[in-house]
Protein backbone atom coordinates (compact mmCIF):
# COMPACT_ATOMS: atom_id res chain seq x y z
CA UNK A 1 0.00 0.00 0.00
CA UNK A 2 1.59 3.28 -1.04
CA UNK A 3 1.99 6.38 1.01
CA UNK A 4 -0.74 8.36 -0.74
CA UNK A 5 -3.34 5.66 0.00
CA UNK A 6 -2.31 5.44 3.63
CA UNK A 7 -2.38 9.19 4.08
CA UNK A 8 -5.74 9.37 2.34
CA UNK A 9 -6.98 7.15 5.15
CA UNK A 10 -5.49 9.52 7.70
CA UNK A 11 -7.18 12.39 5.90
CA UNK A 12 -10.43 10.52 6.26
CA UNK A 13 -9.85 10.20 9.98
CA UNK A 14 -9.01 13.89 10.22
CA UNK A 15 -11.99 14.86 8.13
CA UNK A 16 -14.32 12.71 10.19
CA UNK A 17 -12.98 14.49 13.25
CA UNK A 18 -13.50 17.89 11.65
CA UNK A 19 -16.97 17.05 10.46
CA UNK A 20 -17.98 15.74 13.84
CA UNK A 21 -16.64 18.86 15.48
CA UNK A 22 -18.67 20.94 13.07
CA UNK A 23 -21.85 19.00 13.95
CA UNK A 24 -21.06 19.36 17.63
CA UNK A 25 -20.53 23.08 17.23
CA UNK A 26 -23.92 23.47 15.64
CA UNK A 27 -25.73 21.58 18.38
CA UNK A 28 -23.80 23.44 21.04
CA UNK A 29 -24.84 26.71 19.45
CA UNK A 30 -28.48 25.65 19.71
CA UNK A 31 -27.89 24.72 23.32
CA UNK A 32 -26.34 28.10 23.87
CA UNK A 33 -29.41 29.85 22.46
CA UNK A 34 -31.76 27.79 24.61
CA UNK A 35 -29.61 28.50 27.66
CA UNK A 36 -29.76 32.19 26.87
CA UNK A 37 -33.55 32.04 26.79
CA UNK A 38 -33.69 30.26 30.14
CA UNK A 39 -31.31 32.79 31.55
CA UNK A 40 -33.36 35.72 30.29
CA UNK A 41 -36.39 34.37 32.11
CA UNK A 42 -34.55 33.79 35.33
CA UNK A 43 -32.95 37.24 35.23
CA UNK A 44 -36.32 38.68 36.05
CA UNK A 45 -35.93 37.62 39.67
CA UNK A 46 -33.66 40.62 40.05
CA UNK A 47 -36.38 42.99 38.95
CA UNK A 48 -38.55 44.89 41.29
CA UNK A 49 -41.36 42.39 41.70
CA UNK A 50 -39.38 39.41 40.52
CA UNK A 51 -39.29 37.67 43.85
CA UNK A 52 -43.07 37.47 43.91
CA UNK A 53 -43.15 35.57 40.67
CA UNK A 54 -40.54 32.98 41.45
CA UNK A 55 -42.93 30.09 40.99
CA UNK A 56 -44.09 31.25 37.61
CA UNK A 57 -40.60 32.15 36.45
CA UNK A 58 -39.30 28.73 37.41
CA UNK A 59 -42.15 27.02 35.57
CA UNK A 60 -41.41 29.00 32.44
CA UNK A 61 -37.68 28.42 32.80
CA UNK A 62 -38.15 24.68 33.14
CA UNK A 63 -40.43 24.59 30.15
CA UNK A 64 -37.76 26.27 28.05
CA UNK A 65 -35.13 24.07 29.63
CA UNK A 66 -36.93 20.98 28.37
CA UNK A 67 -35.92 22.00 24.86
CA UNK A 68 -32.33 21.48 25.96
CA UNK A 69 -33.00 17.87 26.95
CA UNK A 70 -33.49 16.85 23.36
CA UNK A 71 -30.53 18.89 22.28
CA UNK A 72 -28.34 17.20 24.86
CA UNK A 73 -29.55 13.80 23.82
CA UNK A 74 -28.82 14.69 20.19
CA UNK A 75 -25.36 15.81 21.23
CA UNK A 76 -24.78 12.65 23.28
CA UNK A 77 -25.69 10.51 20.29
CA UNK A 78 -22.90 12.13 18.29
CA UNK A 79 -20.13 11.26 20.73
CA UNK A 80 -18.53 7.84 20.25
CA UNK A 81 -18.10 5.93 23.52
CA UNK A 82 -14.90 6.80 25.35
CA UNK A 83 -14.39 10.04 23.46
CA UNK A 84 -16.16 12.44 25.75
CA UNK A 85 -12.93 14.16 26.73
CA UNK A 86 -11.84 14.42 23.13
CA UNK A 87 -14.50 16.96 22.37
CA UNK A 88 -15.62 18.30 25.70
CA UNK A 89 -13.94 21.65 25.20
CA UNK A 90 -16.75 22.40 22.78
CA UNK A 91 -19.53 22.10 25.33
CA UNK A 92 -17.67 22.69 28.57
CA UNK A 93 -18.77 26.30 28.87
CA UNK A 94 -22.37 25.53 27.94
CA UNK A 95 -22.49 22.59 30.32
CA UNK A 96 -21.32 24.77 33.18
CA UNK A 97 -23.92 27.34 32.28
CA UNK A 98 -26.69 24.73 32.32
CA UNK A 99 -25.45 23.37 35.64
CA UNK A 100 -25.76 26.86 36.98
CA UNK A 101 -29.24 27.37 35.55
CA UNK A 102 -30.49 24.07 36.98
CA UNK A 103 -28.97 24.76 40.36
CA UNK A 104 -30.54 28.20 40.36
CA UNK A 105 -34.01 26.84 39.57
CA UNK A 106 -33.48 24.17 42.19
CA UNK A 107 -32.54 26.76 44.78
CA UNK A 108 -35.40 29.08 43.90
CA UNK A 109 -37.93 26.28 44.21
CA UNK A 110 -36.56 24.44 47.23
CA UNK A 111 -33.77 26.58 48.71
CA UNK A 112 -31.68 23.43 48.64
CA UNK A 113 -28.46 22.55 46.93
CA UNK A 114 -28.96 20.70 43.68
CA UNK A 115 -26.70 17.70 43.87
CA UNK A 116 -24.79 16.39 40.89
CA UNK A 117 -27.54 13.83 40.40
CA UNK A 118 -30.27 16.47 40.66
CA UNK A 119 -28.73 18.49 37.87
CA UNK A 120 -28.20 15.34 35.84
CA UNK A 121 -31.89 14.50 36.20
CA UNK A 122 -33.02 17.99 35.22
CA UNK A 123 -30.86 17.93 32.12
CA UNK A 124 -31.57 14.25 31.43
CA UNK A 125 -27.86 13.68 31.14
CA UNK A 126 -25.93 10.89 32.82
CA UNK A 127 -23.55 11.81 35.60
CA UNK A 128 -21.31 8.79 35.22
CA UNK A 129 -18.11 8.92 33.23
CA UNK A 130 -18.64 5.32 32.17
CA UNK A 131 -21.73 6.33 30.21
CA UNK A 132 -19.68 8.39 27.77
CA UNK A 133 -21.56 11.61 27.44
CA UNK A 134 -22.14 12.86 30.95
CA UNK A 135 -22.26 15.88 33.20
CA UNK A 136 -18.68 16.05 34.40
CA UNK A 137 -18.24 16.76 38.07
CA UNK A 138 -15.92 19.69 37.38
CA UNK A 139 -18.51 21.33 35.17
CA UNK A 140 -21.16 20.74 37.79
CA UNK A 141 -18.95 22.33 40.45
CA UNK A 142 -18.25 25.24 38.20
CA UNK A 143 -22.00 25.74 37.83
CA UNK A 144 -22.37 25.84 41.61
CA UNK A 145 -19.77 28.59 41.83
CA UNK A 146 -21.71 30.60 39.26
CA UNK A 147 -24.76 30.05 41.41
CA UNK A 148 -23.04 31.58 44.45
CA UNK A 149 -22.19 34.63 42.41
CA UNK A 150 -25.76 34.98 41.17
CA UNK A 151 -27.14 34.58 44.67
CA UNK A 152 -24.88 37.33 46.00
CA UNK A 153 -26.46 39.60 43.44
CA UNK A 154 -29.90 38.32 44.36
CA UNK A 155 -29.25 39.06 48.03
CA UNK A 156 -28.53 42.67 47.16
CA UNK A 157 -31.55 43.04 44.91
CA UNK A 158 -33.95 41.31 47.25
CA UNK A 159 -33.12 43.91 49.89
CA UNK A 160 -33.85 46.59 47.34
CA UNK A 161 -37.17 44.88 46.69
CA UNK A 162 -37.88 44.96 50.42
CA UNK A 163 -37.42 41.26 51.03
CA UNK A 164 -35.20 40.92 54.09
CA UNK A 165 -35.50 37.20 54.73
CA UNK A 166 -34.12 35.79 51.52
CA UNK A 167 -30.61 37.27 52.04
CA UNK A 168 -30.36 35.47 55.39
CA UNK A 169 -31.30 32.18 53.81
CA UNK A 170 -28.96 32.80 50.90
CA UNK A 171 -26.21 33.50 53.39
CA UNK A 172 -26.70 30.13 55.08
CA UNK A 173 -26.87 28.37 51.77
CA UNK A 174 -23.74 29.92 50.31
CA UNK A 175 -21.85 29.45 53.55
CA UNK A 176 -22.65 25.76 53.37
CA UNK A 177 -21.57 25.67 49.75
CA UNK A 178 -18.33 27.35 50.71
CA UNK A 179 -17.78 24.70 53.35
CA UNK A 180 -18.27 22.02 50.75
CA UNK A 181 -15.76 23.51 48.38
CA UNK A 182 -13.16 23.76 51.09
CA UNK A 183 -13.11 19.98 51.19
CA UNK A 184 -11.85 19.82 47.62
CA UNK A 185 -8.24 19.75 46.49
CA UNK A 186 -8.56 21.72 43.31
CA UNK A 187 -5.82 21.33 40.76
CA UNK A 188 -7.75 22.58 37.81
CA UNK A 189 -6.80 26.18 37.35
CA UNK A 190 -10.06 27.68 36.16
CA UNK A 191 -12.04 25.96 38.90
CA UNK A 192 -9.62 27.19 41.53
CA UNK A 193 -9.92 30.72 40.22
CA UNK A 194 -13.68 30.60 40.38
CA UNK A 195 -13.43 29.19 43.86
CA UNK A 196 -11.32 32.18 44.88
CA UNK A 197 -14.10 34.37 43.57
CA UNK A 198 -16.55 32.50 45.81
CA UNK A 199 -14.83 34.08 48.79
CA UNK A 200 -15.86 37.49 47.49
CA UNK A 201 -19.44 36.34 47.00
CA UNK A 202 -19.51 35.09 50.56
CA UNK A 203 -18.13 38.41 51.71
CA UNK A 204 -20.72 40.39 49.73
CA UNK A 205 -23.61 38.36 51.13
CA UNK A 206 -22.19 38.67 54.60
CA UNK A 207 -22.21 42.43 54.15
CA UNK A 208 -25.86 42.36 53.23
CA UNK A 209 -26.70 40.29 56.30
CA UNK A 210 -24.64 42.64 58.39
CA UNK A 211 -26.51 45.65 57.01
CA UNK A 212 -29.82 43.99 57.82
CA UNK A 213 -28.68 43.07 61.32
CA UNK A 214 -27.31 46.48 62.15
CA UNK A 215 -30.57 48.06 61.12
CA UNK A 216 -32.66 45.51 62.86
CA UNK A 217 -34.19 44.44 59.61
CA UNK A 218 -33.42 40.82 60.16
CA UNK A 219 -36.75 39.30 61.00
CA UNK A 220 -36.67 37.57 64.33
CA UNK A 221 -39.02 34.79 63.37
CA UNK A 222 -36.57 33.50 60.85
CA UNK A 223 -33.60 33.14 63.10
CA UNK A 224 -35.77 31.35 65.57
CA UNK A 225 -37.53 28.97 63.24
CA UNK A 226 -34.35 28.02 61.49
Amino acid at each position, binding site marked *: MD*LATVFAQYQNLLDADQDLREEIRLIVRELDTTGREVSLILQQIHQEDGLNQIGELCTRAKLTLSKANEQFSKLASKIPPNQYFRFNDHWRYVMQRYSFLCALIFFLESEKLALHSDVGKLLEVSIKEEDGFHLDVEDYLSGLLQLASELSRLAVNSVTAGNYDLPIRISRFVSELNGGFRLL*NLKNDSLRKRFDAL*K*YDVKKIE*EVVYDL*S*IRGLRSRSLTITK
Partner: protein
Amino acid sequence: METAPPKILASVATPLIEPEESFDPDIQSFFSDCSKKLDTHHDRYERVVKLSRDITIESKRVIFLLHRVQDETSKMKICNEAEGKLQVVINSSWNRLAKELVGQDHHHYLRAYSPGLQEFIEAISFLQFLRDGNLINLEEVQSRLTYSEELKVPVPVYEYLLGIADLTGELMRLCINAVGRGETQLVFNTCMSLRKIHEALSSLNLGFQRELKRKLQVSRQSLQKVETACYTVQVRGSEIPKELLAAKAVLSDDNPTWNEEYD
Protein backbone atom coordinates in the same frame (compact mmCIF):
# COMPACT_ATOMS: atom_id res chain seq x y z
CA MET B 1 5.97 4.35 0.85
CA GLU B 2 8.10 1.76 -0.86
CA THR B 3 10.63 4.43 -1.67
CA ALA B 4 13.62 3.39 0.33
CA PRO B 5 14.44 -0.11 -0.84
CA PRO B 6 16.11 -2.40 1.69
CA LYS B 7 19.37 -2.00 -0.16
CA ILE B 8 19.72 1.55 1.02
CA LEU B 9 23.08 0.95 2.57
CA ALA B 10 24.55 -0.75 -0.46
CA SER B 11 25.90 2.53 -1.72
CA VAL B 12 27.43 3.09 -5.09
CA ALA B 13 30.46 4.92 -3.83
CA THR B 14 32.53 3.54 -1.00
CA PRO B 15 33.57 5.92 1.69
CA LEU B 16 36.87 7.50 0.80
CA ILE B 17 38.00 7.23 4.37
CA GLU B 18 37.06 4.21 6.45
CA PRO B 19 36.19 5.64 9.82
CA GLU B 20 35.31 2.55 11.86
CA GLU B 21 38.45 0.59 11.15
CA SER B 22 40.87 3.31 12.05
CA PHE B 23 38.89 4.19 15.16
CA ASP B 24 41.38 4.74 17.97
CA PRO B 25 40.31 2.45 20.84
CA ASP B 26 41.55 4.96 23.44
CA ILE B 27 39.34 7.64 22.03
CA GLN B 28 36.46 5.25 21.76
CA SER B 29 36.78 4.30 25.41
CA PHE B 30 37.14 7.95 26.37
CA PHE B 31 33.88 8.78 24.65
CA SER B 32 32.24 5.76 26.25
CA ASP B 33 33.23 7.19 29.63
CA CYS B 34 31.81 10.56 28.68
CA SER B 35 28.63 8.87 27.63
CA LYS B 36 28.25 7.17 30.99
CA LYS B 37 28.93 10.42 32.84
CA LEU B 38 26.31 12.29 30.87
CA ASP B 39 23.76 9.50 31.25
CA THR B 40 24.29 9.32 35.01
CA HIS B 41 23.63 13.01 35.29
CA HIS B 42 20.54 12.93 33.12
CA ASP B 43 19.12 9.97 35.00
CA ARG B 44 19.61 11.65 38.34
CA TYR B 45 18.12 14.87 37.02
CA GLU B 46 15.05 12.97 35.90
CA ARG B 47 14.62 11.32 39.30
CA VAL B 48 14.87 14.70 40.99
CA VAL B 49 12.20 16.13 38.69
CA LYS B 50 9.84 13.34 39.66
CA LEU B 51 10.46 13.77 43.38
CA SER B 52 9.85 17.47 42.96
CA ARG B 53 6.47 16.83 41.32
CA ASP B 54 5.48 14.60 44.25
CA ILE B 55 6.47 17.31 46.71
CA THR B 56 4.50 19.93 44.79
CA ILE B 57 1.32 17.91 44.89
CA GLU B 58 1.55 17.10 48.58
CA SER B 59 2.37 20.70 49.44
CA LYS B 60 -0.63 21.94 47.49
CA ARG B 61 -2.84 19.54 49.39
CA VAL B 62 -1.49 20.77 52.72
CA ILE B 63 -2.34 24.32 51.68
CA PHE B 64 -5.89 23.29 50.82
CA LEU B 65 -6.12 21.51 54.13
CA LEU B 66 -5.01 24.59 56.03
CA HIS B 67 -7.69 26.69 54.39
CA ARG B 68 -10.21 24.44 56.09
CA VAL B 69 -9.43 25.98 59.47
CA GLN B 70 -12.65 27.51 60.79
CA ASP B 71 -11.98 28.21 64.44
CA GLU B 72 -9.55 27.55 67.28
CA THR B 73 -10.58 23.91 67.66
CA SER B 74 -10.35 22.99 64.03
CA LYS B 75 -7.15 25.02 63.85
CA MET B 76 -5.30 22.81 66.30
CA LYS B 77 -6.51 19.65 64.70
CA ILE B 78 -5.83 20.74 61.16
CA CYS B 79 -2.42 22.23 61.91
CA ASN B 80 -1.37 18.98 63.49
CA GLU B 81 -2.60 17.06 60.49
CA ALA B 82 -0.76 19.42 58.15
CA GLU B 83 2.41 19.16 60.18
CA GLY B 84 2.14 15.40 59.97
CA LYS B 85 1.69 15.45 56.21
CA LEU B 86 4.64 17.76 55.72
CA GLN B 87 6.75 15.56 57.97
CA VAL B 88 5.91 12.62 55.75
CA VAL B 89 7.09 14.60 52.74
CA ILE B 90 10.27 15.51 54.59
CA ASN B 91 10.91 11.93 55.59
CA SER B 92 10.17 10.40 52.22
CA SER B 93 10.46 12.53 49.06
CA TRP B 94 12.80 15.18 50.42
CA ASN B 95 14.97 12.57 52.07
CA ARG B 96 15.32 10.67 48.82
CA LEU B 97 16.04 13.90 47.01
CA ALA B 98 18.72 14.81 49.57
CA LYS B 99 20.36 11.44 48.96
CA GLU B 100 20.44 12.13 45.23
CA LEU B 101 22.36 15.33 45.95
CA VAL B 102 25.06 13.77 48.12
CA GLY B 103 28.44 14.53 46.60
CA GLN B 104 26.83 16.69 43.93
CA ASP B 105 26.77 20.41 43.41
CA HIS B 106 23.09 20.95 44.14
CA HIS B 107 22.95 23.95 41.82
CA HIS B 108 23.25 21.49 39.00
CA TYR B 109 19.84 20.08 39.98
CA LEU B 110 18.23 23.20 41.34
CA ARG B 111 16.10 23.81 38.29
CA ALA B 112 14.76 20.29 38.69
CA TYR B 113 13.63 20.66 42.29
CA SER B 114 12.91 24.38 42.42
CA PRO B 115 9.14 24.07 41.76
CA GLY B 116 8.72 21.53 44.54
CA LEU B 117 10.87 23.54 46.93
CA GLN B 118 8.90 26.73 46.38
CA GLU B 119 5.57 25.03 46.87
CA PHE B 120 6.90 23.30 50.00
CA ILE B 121 8.08 26.62 51.44
CA GLU B 122 4.69 28.10 50.66
CA ALA B 123 2.99 25.27 52.55
CA ILE B 124 5.28 25.19 55.57
CA SER B 125 5.30 28.97 55.95
CA PHE B 126 1.51 29.04 55.71
CA LEU B 127 1.29 26.40 58.42
CA GLN B 128 3.62 28.31 60.69
CA PHE B 129 1.81 31.58 60.08
CA LEU B 130 -1.52 30.03 61.00
CA ARG B 131 -0.20 28.18 64.02
CA ASP B 132 2.35 30.59 65.49
CA GLY B 133 1.42 33.83 63.79
CA ASN B 134 4.89 34.52 62.46
CA LEU B 135 6.91 34.15 59.34
CA ILE B 136 9.17 31.14 59.05
CA ASN B 137 12.69 32.21 58.22
CA LEU B 138 15.29 30.76 55.91
CA GLU B 139 17.22 28.99 58.68
CA GLU B 140 14.10 27.30 59.93
CA VAL B 141 13.23 26.02 56.46
CA GLN B 142 16.79 24.87 55.97
CA SER B 143 16.81 23.04 59.29
CA ARG B 144 13.69 21.13 58.27
CA LEU B 145 15.49 19.89 55.18
CA THR B 146 18.74 19.07 56.95
CA TYR B 147 19.09 15.44 57.95
CA SER B 148 22.74 15.49 58.92
CA GLU B 149 25.91 17.37 58.19
CA GLU B 150 26.21 15.66 54.83
CA LEU B 151 22.61 14.89 54.07
CA LYS B 152 20.52 17.92 53.30
CA VAL B 153 18.71 19.79 50.58
CA PRO B 154 20.24 23.26 50.37
CA VAL B 155 17.65 26.05 50.31
CA PRO B 156 18.94 29.07 48.35
CA VAL B 157 17.70 32.43 49.52
CA TYR B 158 16.07 33.14 46.16
CA GLU B 159 13.96 30.01 46.37
CA TYR B 160 12.97 30.91 49.91
CA LEU B 161 11.87 34.37 48.80
CA LEU B 162 9.92 32.95 45.86
CA GLY B 163 8.09 30.62 48.23
CA ILE B 164 7.31 33.51 50.59
CA ALA B 165 6.05 35.61 47.70
CA ASP B 166 3.60 32.79 46.95
CA LEU B 167 2.59 32.73 50.60
CA THR B 168 1.12 36.21 50.23
CA GLY B 169 -1.47 34.80 47.82
CA GLU B 170 -2.59 32.26 50.41
CA LEU B 171 -2.70 34.94 53.10
CA MET B 172 -4.98 36.93 50.85
CA ARG B 173 -7.33 33.94 50.55
CA LEU B 174 -7.19 33.43 54.30
CA CYS B 175 -8.09 37.04 54.85
CA ILE B 176 -11.01 37.17 52.44
CA ASN B 177 -12.32 33.95 53.93
CA ALA B 178 -12.14 35.53 57.37
CA VAL B 179 -14.15 38.50 56.12
CA GLY B 180 -16.82 36.10 54.99
CA ARG B 181 -16.86 34.50 58.42
CA GLY B 182 -16.88 37.90 60.14
CA GLU B 183 -13.55 37.33 61.87
CA THR B 184 -12.71 41.01 61.94
CA GLN B 185 -9.61 40.77 64.04
CA LEU B 186 -8.12 38.03 61.90
CA VAL B 187 -8.82 40.18 58.87
CA PHE B 188 -6.96 43.18 60.22
CA ASN B 189 -4.10 41.16 61.59
CA THR B 190 -3.59 39.26 58.39
CA CYS B 191 -3.66 42.51 56.46
CA MET B 192 -0.98 43.95 58.71
CA SER B 193 1.21 40.89 58.35
CA LEU B 194 0.69 40.75 54.64
CA ARG B 195 1.62 44.42 54.31
CA LYS B 196 4.80 43.88 56.32
CA ILE B 197 5.81 40.86 54.28
CA HIS B 198 5.10 42.67 51.06
CA GLU B 199 7.08 45.70 52.13
CA ALA B 200 9.97 43.55 53.29
CA LEU B 201 10.01 41.78 49.93
CA SER B 202 9.73 45.08 48.03
CA SER B 203 12.59 46.63 49.94
CA LEU B 204 14.99 44.03 48.59
CA ASN B 205 17.27 45.12 45.80
CA LEU B 206 16.78 42.13 43.57
CA GLY B 207 19.02 42.82 40.65
CA PHE B 208 17.97 40.67 37.76
CA GLN B 209 15.52 38.27 39.40
CA ARG B 210 12.63 38.47 36.94
CA GLU B 211 10.53 35.75 38.46
CA LEU B 212 10.59 37.34 41.88
CA LYS B 213 9.72 40.71 40.39
CA ARG B 214 6.72 39.15 38.69
CA LYS B 215 5.60 37.50 41.89
CA LEU B 216 5.96 40.80 43.71
CA GLN B 217 3.42 42.29 41.32
CA VAL B 218 1.00 39.53 42.21
CA SER B 219 1.75 40.04 45.88
CA ARG B 220 0.96 43.73 45.51
CA GLN B 221 -2.39 42.86 44.00
CA SER B 222 -3.10 40.50 46.88
CA LEU B 223 -2.25 43.24 49.33
CA GLN B 224 -4.62 45.64 47.62
CA LYS B 225 -7.42 43.09 47.71
CA VAL B 226 -6.86 42.63 51.41
CA GLU B 227 -6.66 46.36 52.03
CA THR B 228 -9.95 46.80 50.22
CA ALA B 229 -11.45 44.06 52.35
CA CYS B 230 -10.28 45.80 55.53
CA TYR B 231 -11.70 49.01 54.21
CA THR B 232 -15.08 47.38 53.66
CA VAL B 233 -15.10 45.92 57.14
CA GLN B 234 -14.20 49.31 58.58
CA VAL B 235 -16.75 51.24 56.54
CA ARG B 236 -19.46 48.82 57.54
CA GLY B 237 -18.34 48.90 61.15
CA SER B 238 -18.39 52.66 61.13
CA GLU B 239 -21.99 52.61 60.23
CA ILE B 240 -22.93 51.37 63.63
CA PRO B 241 -24.46 54.32 65.41
CA LYS B 242 -22.49 55.41 68.41
CA GLU B 243 -25.44 54.29 70.55
CA LEU B 244 -24.76 50.73 69.49
CA LEU B 245 -21.23 50.65 70.68
CA ALA B 246 -22.35 49.09 73.91
CA ALA B 247 -24.24 46.48 71.98
CA LYS B 248 -21.13 45.91 69.95
CA ALA B 249 -19.32 45.07 73.14
CA VAL B 250 -22.09 42.63 73.96
CA LEU B 251 -21.71 41.27 70.51
CA SER B 252 -18.04 40.71 71.08
CA ASP B 253 -19.00 38.77 74.17
CA ASP B 254 -20.60 36.21 71.95
CA ASN B 255 -24.11 37.07 72.96
CA PRO B 256 -26.27 35.43 70.34
CA THR B 257 -29.29 37.59 71.12
CA TRP B 258 -27.68 40.95 70.55
CA ASN B 259 -29.60 41.76 67.45
CA GLU B 260 -32.99 41.19 68.95
CA GLU B 261 -32.59 44.25 71.10
CA TYR B 262 -33.03 46.71 68.29
CA ASP B 263 -35.75 45.25 66.21
